[in-house]
């Protein structure tokens, strides 16, 4: 269908879409780096949020700034910036996440020709009153800073409009996730991946309209063949559409995920009553967390087991980027909690620039046979 094809085209060449958008609208584009980027504020400021994932070219130009033991996301993103592949950016906003992104922000600020630079240092713990208060203050400060950097004001009405768009996107994405889980034959994993990728690039109102039409189309479809083994993908950034194809080729089907480039950023509703900044902050405090954040010593494990059970997952595949410390630290306990719940799991370490497809495929096949 046409709308899905549009989304897939954006996902295949995000830079091309953004350049065209800029030429047509004269709008501003802001690069961001994780699911804690204050996208609602950027939209309220009339700008387009572009999630930087790197990997659109080599990483060699990043070698002068980053050691080989930093992850491919960090190296790929910096290389894209230094090589001019992000020349459409008017600015970059770094939410604080891991140690590597933290230093990437400094190196970026000192070297990358991508317009203005803003650090939004959110708290690391999200489960105390003072941390939540701090988060709301930081987001409030960010509102003023972003408005000034974009050369305009951000009114409450602007914020409410932006929140409305993101709420609609997240609600519609939730429908897509529900559909994927209930009738996995209707939409392929790689299509979901393309939709998610497009959600991080496209003008959000346009994306929402496109997505709504895609959903109307999909929800009327024949359920298709049975899914095979139901697989839950767990991890951080996964920018490899191949993963879904490989899982499918091995006899499985990705029915749900908790990825940073997936359900983590695309779920949760922002309360529309009351102060908009406090409401944005509240969603961050309540939604599924990145392992760099803290809401309790076992909260991620409990959440993973709960989701895997709810999704009736036959197995969990962890997809981690090599050198991603926060995820690697959580892995042993997450695996143990899944083991205790009787849910088998497989760990796959990826380096975006250097994917060992064959090995991944073989391990996936062996895993499916075991399920």
């Amino acid at each position, binding site marked *: 269908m046409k709308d899905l094809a549009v989304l897939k085209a954006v996902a295949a060449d995000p830079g091309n879409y953004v350049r065209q958008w800029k030429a047509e609208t004269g709008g501003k584009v802001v690069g961001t780096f994780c699911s804690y980027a204050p996208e609602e504020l950027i939209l309220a400021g009339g700008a387009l949020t572009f999630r930087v994932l790197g990997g659109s070219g080599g990483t060699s130009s990043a070698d*002068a*700034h*980053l*050691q080989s*033991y*930093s992850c491919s996301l960090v190296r790929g993103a910096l290389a894209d910036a230094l090589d001019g592949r992000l020349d459409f950016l008017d600015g970059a906003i*770094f939410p*604080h996440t*891991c*140690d*590597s992104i*933290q*230093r*990437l*922000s*400094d*190196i970026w*600020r*000192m*070297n990358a020709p991508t317009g203005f630079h803003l*650090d939004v*240092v959110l*708290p*690391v*713990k999200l489960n*105390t009153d*003072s*941390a939540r*208060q*701090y988060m709301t*203050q*930081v987001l409030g*400060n960010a509102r003023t800073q972003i408005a000034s950097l974009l050369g305009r004001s951000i009114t409450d009405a602007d914020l409410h409009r932006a929140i409305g768009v993101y709420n609609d996107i997240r609600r519609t994405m939730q429908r897509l996730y529900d559909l994927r889980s209930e009738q996995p034959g209707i939409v392929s994993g790689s299509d979901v991946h393309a939709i998610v990728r497009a959600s991080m690039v496209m003008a959000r109102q346009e994306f929402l309209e496109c997505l709504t039409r895609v959903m109307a189309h999909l929800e009327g479809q024949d359920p298709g063949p049975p899914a095979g083994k139901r697989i839950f993908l767990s991890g951080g950034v996964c920018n490899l559409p191949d993963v879904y194809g490989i899982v499918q080729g091995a006899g499985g089907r990705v029915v749900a995920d908790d990825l940073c480039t997936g359900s983590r950023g695309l779920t949760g509703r922002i309360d529309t009553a009351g102060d908009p900044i406090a409401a944005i902050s509240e969603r961050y405090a309540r939604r599924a967390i990145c*392992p*760099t954040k*803290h809401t309790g*010593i*076992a909260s991620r494990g409990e959440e993973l087991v709960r989701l895997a059970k709810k999704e009736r997952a036959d197995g969990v595949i962890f997809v981690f980027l*090599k*050198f991603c*410390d*926060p995820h*690697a*630290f*959580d*892995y*042993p*306990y997450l*695996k143990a909690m899944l083991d205790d719940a009787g849910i088998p799991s497989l760990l796959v*370490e990826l380096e975006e620039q250097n994917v060992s497809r064959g090995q991944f495929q073989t391990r996936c096949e062996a895993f499916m046979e075991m399920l």
Partner: protein
Amino acid sequence: MSDPEKPIDPEKEKRKIKSVKRMKAIMTDYYIDAKTAQQNNKKVAWITSGGPVEPLITMDVIPVYPENHGAMIGASKMGVDLCEKAETMGYASDLCSYARADIACATVDGGPIGGLPRPDMLICCNNICGTVLKWYEVQARYFKVPLFILDTPFIHTEYTQTVHDYVRAQLDEYITFLETHCGKPFDHDRMMEVGRLSIRGQELWQQVLDTTTNRPAPMSAFDAFFHLALIVTLRGTQTVVDYYTQLLDEMKTRVAEGIAAVLDERYRLLWDNLPVWYRTRWLSEKFAEHHACLVADTYTSSWCGTLKYLDEKDFLGSMAAGYARIYINIGTDQMADMVLDMVNKYGVDGLVMHSNRSCKPYSLGQYDIQRIVREKCGIPSLVIESDMTDARNFSESQIGTRIDAFMEIIQ
């Protein structure tokens, strides 16, 4: 290399720092106290190396440092075994070697002192890295003890009032946490005294480090790596003040008598990042062969680097800035400025950077600092790829060759 058959070299004997013996005795007593805490009805808190220890001292809680333990594991060359053990537990080999060694050690009570005493509570301050958050979560699940997280937002460019208020509020929460888990009220008067001793200890430590502005330097960074343990572990006690007073006296005497750390000191170098614990001696001798003394380092000075923010009259209040604004919790360009200051202050001829696989917040950005130092001071620099505790990441022949080549450039 030392040889037991060799007769004692009086020249070498003269250069040995005599206070070492006292330091070893203090550390032994400290670990005996910590290991017997339970028998003596004392509580033990594990705390990160950059964490605020003063409230623990005030509450008579014995602070124990998994990172100091990690350094001991590294120095006693037990790091590889324990890191491998952690890897069999599912921890990736790319993770911090202190964390891997400690997580494994806790399950087997291994290492040079048969493991650390069991914690009653865990205090994690993320001013040094995000790794400690994950590490302490692991230990909180393992030991099933309460965890307090002091979240010190990263200061990329500016220490704002918003950050200050957040950290300050958490210091009060920290005190409430201690009162709850120690079952007694916090003595604010005692805290004032502990704060005063902490500041005094840090001042003395800075003065000890500053004796190396003398030529020749009476001690080297390798000595500082050893004598550092006290300012890290027992900051806020009279013991630290007394010890550094003694050490400072010894250094002053050495300066007066012209006793150098490195025989015939010709070149002065600045070290960046954590030590390579299992190779400090080899590295020290390697540089000494070239008559090069590592006169200063960015690491040991971190435990007195925020003195300017501390206030004896409002210690608790000033701790927010004192702990949030430490060397590796600030932007790479600010770190470069501090390196430039040290280059000038200590009259340094070259910069040696340990690119430490275990420590991303310290290591990522080093290449930019290297460039800035080259542009602004014109001094050469050397990057050594290694790891602080996991010896599998140390290539002696490669590093030796690189040091030799670097020293030729300096000459």
